[in-house]
């Protein structure tokens, strides 16, 4: 495919991500921060997000499997997850985290487990989407084009 088509595809894909609520303006902000001094800023941040989130999700799974659940610890992890997701603009993940925190406050184990499932689901969705987006961008760059804003 030629560059222009790829670029159009990328733009459409990005728009759809915003439209479906996977991403919000915070992600746009991140993109604005990327410049010649910092050419891979977005990718770096998003990779860090993936690492961080996976760690948190593992911790959460362990914590919620315990006989007596330490809700404070659960809450701390969810808080971190919420912070990270809001920093990069992963809107849907962030929203599930908010619900998750409410269940933690109520000390509702079933609710928490349910939310954990949801978070994992949303996270994997957004991860897939972002990875595809980066792939598209890489394709454009290799084709010699530039990433449209």
């Amino acid at each position, binding site marked *: 495919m030629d560059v222009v088509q790829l670029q159009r595809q990328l733009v459409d894909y990005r728009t759809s991500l915003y439209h479906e609520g996977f991403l919000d303006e915070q992600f746009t*902000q*991140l993109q*604005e*921060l990327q410049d010649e001094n910092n050419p891979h800023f977005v990718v*770096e941040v998003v990779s860090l997000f993936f690492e961080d989130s996976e760690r948190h999700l593992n911790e959460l799974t362990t914590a919620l499997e315990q006989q007596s659940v330490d809700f404070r610890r659960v809450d701390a992890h969810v*808080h*971190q997850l919420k912070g*990270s997701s809001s*920093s990069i*603009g992963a809107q849907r993940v962030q929203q599930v985290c908010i619900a998750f925190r409410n269940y933690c406050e109520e000390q509702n184990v079933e609710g928490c487990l349910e939310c954990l499932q949801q978070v994992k689901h949303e996270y994997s969705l957004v991860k897939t989407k972002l990875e595809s987006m980066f792939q598209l961008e890489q394709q454009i760059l290799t084709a010699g084009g530039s990433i449209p804003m």
Partner: protein
Amino acid sequence: MESCYCIEPQWPADELLMKYQYISDFFIALAYFSIPLELIYFVKKSAVFPYKWVLVQFGAFIVLCGATHLISLWTFTMHTRTVAVVMTTSKVLTAVVSCATALMLVHIIPDLLSVKTRELFLKNKAAELDREMGLIRTQEETGRHVRMLTHEIRSTLDRHTILRTTLVELGRTLALEECALWMPTRTGLELQLSYTLRQQNPVGYTVPIHLPVINQVFSSSRAVKISPNCPVARLRPAGKYMPGEVVAVRVPLLHLSNFQINAWPELSTKRYALMVLMLPSDSARQWHVHELELVEVVADQVAVALSHAAILEESTRARDLLMEQNVALDLARREAETAIRARNDFLAVMNHEMRTPMHAIIALSSLLQETELTPEQRLMVETILKSSNLLATLINDVLDLSRLEDGSLQLELGTFNLYAVFREVFNLIKPIASVKKLNVSLNLAPDLPEYAIGDEKRLMQTILNVVGNALKFSKEGSISVTAFVAKSESLRDPRAPEFFPVPSDNHFYLRVQVKDSGSGISPQDIPKLFTKFAQTQSTATRNSGGSGLGLAICKRFVNLMEGHIWIESEGLGKGCTAIFIVKLGIPERLNGPRLPFIPEVSTSHGPTAFPGLKVLVMDENGVSRMVTKGLLVHLGCDVTMVSSSDECLHVVSHEHKVVLVDVCVPGINGYEIAIRIHEKFTKRYERPLIVALTGNTDKVTKEKCMRVGMDGVILKPVSLDKMRSVLSDLLEQ
């Protein structure tokens, strides 16, 4: 015939006598026996009889006497020797007892007599006590009446009620026929009948105040009996009745102004009212002392109550007056505000309306000037241009001045280039000066700071006006403009002793001197220079036009800039020097050179806004830490990142200008970091600015941030513009 004891009866001659003696003796004996019985009986009946012993003696004496007489009954006939012996014995006994009794009585009778005396004495005493009791009771009654009267009088603060109540109560208490109050008139020369008991609305009788009887009453504080025939007492229809006694008492009318704080008012210059009380006619009653006392007491109480009432009236009146004045003032204020608003609106409208056509005229005339014109046409266009420029200046001046007048003008402070201002003024006047063949020189002192904080536009206007005046009034010669930083000696103008400029760390005083070699000003005209619309009358000035407002406006501007402006001239033809001093701020120096401060935040991706600004970011979350770093790096800052509060406190130094702290992390108390930083850096200029990054900006969080001493709050997630605007706001302070 001698008495013998022979048996022959003695009856024949004195038989009758003997019989009578016999009978008398019998009765005597009877009486003598019955007297003690009676005595005993009655003494037993009475409760008290102190002399029992005397009674016994007396009883014995009588009994023996009786016995003697009884026994002598037997001696009339022939009697035996025994009878004679008994007779003798009884006689002897009787003699003894009677002598004893006689002796006893000598002692006792004075006592008995004195009992009588004592009884009389006690009776007298009882009578006296009765009298005194009566007196006390009367006094107590009087006291009760007074208290009741006082209570009635003092229970109201209305003057009429007080007086009326007094009369009514007095009338009732003392059962008076008539009771009247005479008040002094305004002029003080007459007494007018104001209140009476019987008549509701007394006809306005007046009596001159200087009658002897009235003087007599006024000169004493006691109730004085006066004649029922004197004019103040002639209130009843004179008739066949014998008028009752009349008493009059003075009632002091204490005036408000007589009260000093610590002194009772002296009664020297007092006004008095007269209270006249009349007992019922034909009652033969007399005024008793206690009644007079009652009247005096009541008169005093009335005086006090009246003065209270007067004070109350006065203060009510004063308060009403104040309220009226307040209302009037309020109205006046609102009217004034409306007027000012109307004026401002008018000015604003006129401003626009007048300037628009003005600009059109000026612009088009200038354009016209550029085209091909004949010399007459060119002259005409130049005149049009000059006139319209003058008109525009006039409009501006008037509008500015009226805003300056009511204090609604505020300086627009900003940082500006001082040198640039002078250069621009110089450039503006150079063409005019060269036309008039005047030499203009500009001298800026080397220690003059390049940048200053102040109202650039108005400073330029002032300089321009002053220099323009110098140009206007000089026909030849040179004009020199000098500017330097005023030191304390040169700050003071000997003619303005109230101007005390005090230089400080962030302000300096700019002194500008414009010296010309023009027509000069005579010393007596100098004070008029700064008044509005006043112009000196020399012919040279009359042609140069101008509204005369220029210097007045300059003076206002200079005053707003906390400065002083004055003109020195040695006289006509000797040129003059205009000098002004204004206070300007010194802009703060930051790390590295900074571009001139831009008040509006530019929304484009401009050049780095905060080059080299050292920022410390504390955030536990790796991702958001990285994002924040990216933001700041994009803005050109030098970012250090820490992930815990201990690390933060360890790393923070006075080189960091800003510390960004994430405060919504549970477990790490971001607020505590703020407190610690405050503790670590006690001097304000060493301490970095602390900004909180938080997910919620509700009031509670904001207040908490302010309380711990944070300088700002940013809501996460942060956008580039937000970061830029917050940082620039913070650094501007």
